[in-house]
């Protein structure tokens, strides 16, 4: 990532139209390049200036005219039948839309789905705020005791360097209304966050999903709830999850 790349992608970057990978690469560059940070800041200030323009709302007489037109049109008999057809089409169209929504959006508004969104947010935050570690060490015997006295449970900490997923550190995070352990692993330059806390429901689960471009694996084992998040591809994250589950 060089300045020319940032300059080319400046607008899609501030408009959040880039893939998470490219956006993260740009954020990485911004950390080290004051000139590009300045470019981004100028662009964002420009956006604020435009957004400060007063919003012009429709005059009342226009609203009344339009609503009146709609009523008159409907009162015409042949158009009434046509309007009924329209309603039918909309009902079908709207119903189909609702179905697609409920089937397709997993990060919806219900409780467990909110948790997935929170987990992904925690992952993104850890990468952005440069607060990935409270304890930075590849030694599980350093990381594990670090959590002692900071959490009311002992998260299992294992190094998976032998499987190509070295442990690089840990930190405290906050999820599901409680402090949780966050273990950080790496695969090439990809960061994997593993969030661990005691499971409230011991029913074993193992799920994988894609949320905002991040792969998320969730499983419950030995009374602990595990969430692994990364921009790593799904195949490798699945390998990682399996390695951790079998450790």
């Amino acid at each position, binding site marked *: 990532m060089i300045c020319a790349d940032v300059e080319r992608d*400046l*607008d*899609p970057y501030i*408009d959040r*139209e880039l893939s998470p990978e490219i956006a993260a690469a740009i954020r990485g560059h911004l950390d080290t390049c004051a000139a590009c940070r*300045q470019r981004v800041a*100028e*662009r964002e*200030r*420009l*956006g*604020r*200036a*435009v*957004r*400060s*323009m*007063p*919003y*012009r*709302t*429709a*005059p009342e007489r*226009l*609203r009344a*005219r*339009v*609503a009146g*037109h*709609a009523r008159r*049109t409907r009162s015409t008999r042949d158009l009434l039948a*046509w*309007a009924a*057809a*329209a*309603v039918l*089409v*909309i009902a*079908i*169209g*709207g*119903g*189909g*839309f609702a179905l697609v929504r409920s089937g397709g959006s997993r990060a919806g508004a219900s409780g467990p789905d909110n948790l997935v969104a929170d987990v992904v947010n925690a992952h993104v935050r850890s990468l952005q705020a440069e607060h990935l570690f409270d304890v930075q060490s590849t030694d599980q015997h350093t990381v594990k005791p670090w959590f002692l006295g900071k959490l009311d449970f002992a998260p299992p900490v294992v190094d998976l360097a032998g499987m190509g997923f070295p442990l690089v550190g840990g930190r405290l995070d906050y999820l599901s209304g409680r402090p949780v352990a966050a273990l950080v692993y790496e695969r090439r330059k990809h960061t994997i966050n593993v969030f661990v806390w005691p499971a409230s429901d011991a029913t074993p689960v193992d799920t994988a999903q894609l949320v905002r471009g991040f792969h998320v694996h969730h499983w419950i084992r030995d009374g602990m709830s595990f969430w692994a998040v990364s921009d790593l591809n799904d195949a490798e994250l699945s390998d990682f999850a399996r390695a951790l589950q079998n450790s």
Partner: protein
Amino acid sequence: MFEEIVLPHLDAAFNYARWLTKYDAEAEDVVQDACVRAMRFLPSFRGEDARAWLFTIVRNAWYSRVTRRPVAVDPLPSDNAVDAPTDEALDPEARLLQQGDVARVREALDALPVDFREVIVLREIEGMSYKEIAEVVQVPIGTVMSRIARARDRLAAALTVPLRSMERVP
């Protein structure tokens, strides 16, 4: 129903039309035209994004009005044309005007070619994604992206004043 699909977006439609036309009276006419069309097209509405659907109709209503008149839309410079270099924008001492200077910002927006102005309004004020804007304006997403970038370059140039560097000249 018309009341549920169109009326909730009437303010947004008016604001968009106002930026297209620059005049209240004309914006009213355009939105009224658009609403009459929307009633007619309602059977073809498939439950997708109602705001983008209505905006597309507003834009078409506006476009058929301006093309009926002898005065054409201010021509859009070809997408291949290179904008004049904006030395001021590159001057590290130059500072973008602070917000609050509404009149200046509006002037700069109104001075943009309409195809540039509208993508900025749809993006910044309506918060539409590039995909939604592409749907409204009926151009490919890549064109939306390049128009937004070039529109912002022009705005930045228009709103940037090398104040500090000028003040420092003895």
